[in-house]
């Protein structure tokens, strides 16, 4: 269950309260997010939409502990992350967040297997345990047979699958996907979205996704619109998709 108007106590997995983010650019103050509240339960699949500059990626960065808010609080599974030190926040990210980016961001000199293994290098897992996890993650994304291929030997869709495998290999609390289909053709985009849906339905992952594409957004349980730094609407995705002419 996703809620944008709450500001009291809740048992939601992710709780955002009064979140502000302000940038100063060329002496001008830009209020990217203003007093944002949000609750996301475990197993939810949320899509954030909105025009460029509306603060979608900023919100994702704040939820993922990559950036710090000007004011307000973000709690995930009971951890208040906004006041964590840089070092603790890094540790927290390693345990709780899986990232999927538009440009895949794989390390080009490592194979698919080695890219997926990267987050596990920070754990105490043995080499054989790491192998089990990596092979399981690659199996979920359907790329076990490509594990020794380098990113340049894979298609864009396959690269993004490797990025998804890297995001889920350490079994994080939730996934943050920033335009995961933005650089893919429609067929590949559909495959990635099917994969993300499978992660939510079969593996009970919580997914928060930023997208410009209403067709992609329609596959989420909930679509939230960000306009001028404010979450203005929470709607049923199917209705939105129909209204927007999508599938």
């Amino acid at each position, binding site marked *: 269950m996703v809620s944008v108007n709450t500001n009291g106590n809740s048992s939601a997995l992710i709780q955002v309260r009064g979140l502000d983010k302000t940038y100063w650019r060329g002496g001008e103050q830009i209020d990217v997010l203003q007093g944002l509240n949000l609750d996301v339960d475990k197993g939810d699949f949320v899509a954030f939409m909105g025009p460029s500059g509306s603060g979608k990626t900023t919100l994702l960065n704040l939820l*993922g502990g*990559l950036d710090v808010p000007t004011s307000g609080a973000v709690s995930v599974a009971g951890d208040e992350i906004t006041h964590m030190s840089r070092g603790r926040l*890094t540790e927290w990210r390693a345990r709780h967040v899986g990232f999927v980016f538009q440009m895949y961001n794989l390390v080009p000199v490592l194979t698919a297997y080695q890219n997926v293994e990267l987050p596990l290098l*920070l754990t105490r897992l043995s080499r054989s345990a790491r192998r089990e996890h990596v092979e399981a993650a690659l199996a979920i994304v359907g790329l076990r047979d490509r594990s020794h291929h380098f990113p340049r030997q894979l298609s864009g869709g396959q690269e993004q699958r490797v990025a998804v495998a890297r995001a889920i290999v350490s079994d994080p609390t939730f996934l943050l996907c920033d335009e995961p289909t933005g650089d893919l053709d429609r067929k590949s985009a559909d495959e990635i979205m099917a994969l993300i849906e499978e992660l939510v339905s079969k593996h009970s992952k919580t997914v928060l996704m930023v997208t410009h594409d209403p067709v992609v957004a329609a596959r989420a349980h909930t679509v939230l619109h960000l306009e001028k730094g404010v979450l203005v609407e929470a709607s049923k995705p199917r209705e939105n998709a129909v209204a927007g002419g999508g599938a």
Partner: protein
Amino acid sequence: MKFSRLILANLFRKKVRLLLTLGSFAVALFLFAFLAVVKDAFNRGGSLASANRLVTINRVSIIQPLPLSYGDKIARIPGVQRVTHDNWFGGVYQDEKNFFPQFVIDPENQRQVFPELLVADDQWNAFLKDRQGAIVGAATAKRFGWKIGDRIPIKTTLYGGGAWEFNIDGIFHGQRKEDDETQFWFQWDYFEERVPERLKGLAGWYTVKLDSPDDAIRVAKAIDAEFANSPYETKTDTESAFAASWVKQFGNIEFLILTIGSVVFFTLLLVTGNTMAISVRERTGELAILKAIGFKDGSVLILVLVEALAIALCGGILGLVLAVLAIPVLGAALNGMLPNLILSKSMLAAGIGFALLVGAASGLLPGIGAMRLRVVEAFRRI
């Protein structure tokens, strides 16, 4: 090591750049090793000098002679155990490029004053009986393929010119690896017989063996006082001080080597620092993703530093291996202009230390840059 694959993969990311950086390290370390052995060769006289030996030369300059009669007077000074005199011959074997040091020696006292230079008794006795006899150092004998019984000509330009004939009666060896085995000794009587009249009865310098090193200052002062206000005033120093002043004749070698070494160091630092900075800048996105997925600032710094150190270590070892192979060849090519060029273990260790220092210094700034990289800003840039 869990991160070794990542480090190796990053190292081999741009193979040409890696080879060029390794090459610059190798050349710099080769030069470092060469400068170190040259400096050592120049300074070895001081380190090998015996603490209980003094050298007495003419106060004006070593090229001014001293009377032979001084030997007995020096020997009478309390604390003096033995005195021997020498002269510089300055010849070449067959060709100008075949230079090596030849000394006219005092056969009666040579072995007692320089006991570390060993000659077999039978060879020494044969030498004593042979007016044209010569004892040659093992290095020079090897260089020219001389053996006992050979008769060899040495050309000189100092004492009337022409070639002097010698019989090789013996070969001496140093007790220590560093001892100078390039010298060539021959009889004082043979020298006296052939030099012009005006040069007879004169020695180049005296070497004085003391009863105890503790007497060095007192005996040196006593020798110089003995000949003060005479036509041939003396200047007496310990053997190590004499060796140091001899080196100074060639200019400030230490300063020269330090200057060249510093230029090499800073050039290498700039080259490798620039390479590492480019390498890190190219990977801004990858470093950002590493940090996003949980690599700490310190881990990223260590990754960059280990990369820089690995390049430095491999390039350094390559340069030092080249030096080990090439320095004996270069030493031979110098034709005895310098004592043996010896690349010691301590020089190799210093070379590795130097390489690691440059590696760490060159990796530090880019590493700190990577450490301070803010993920959000990095993603905004790529």
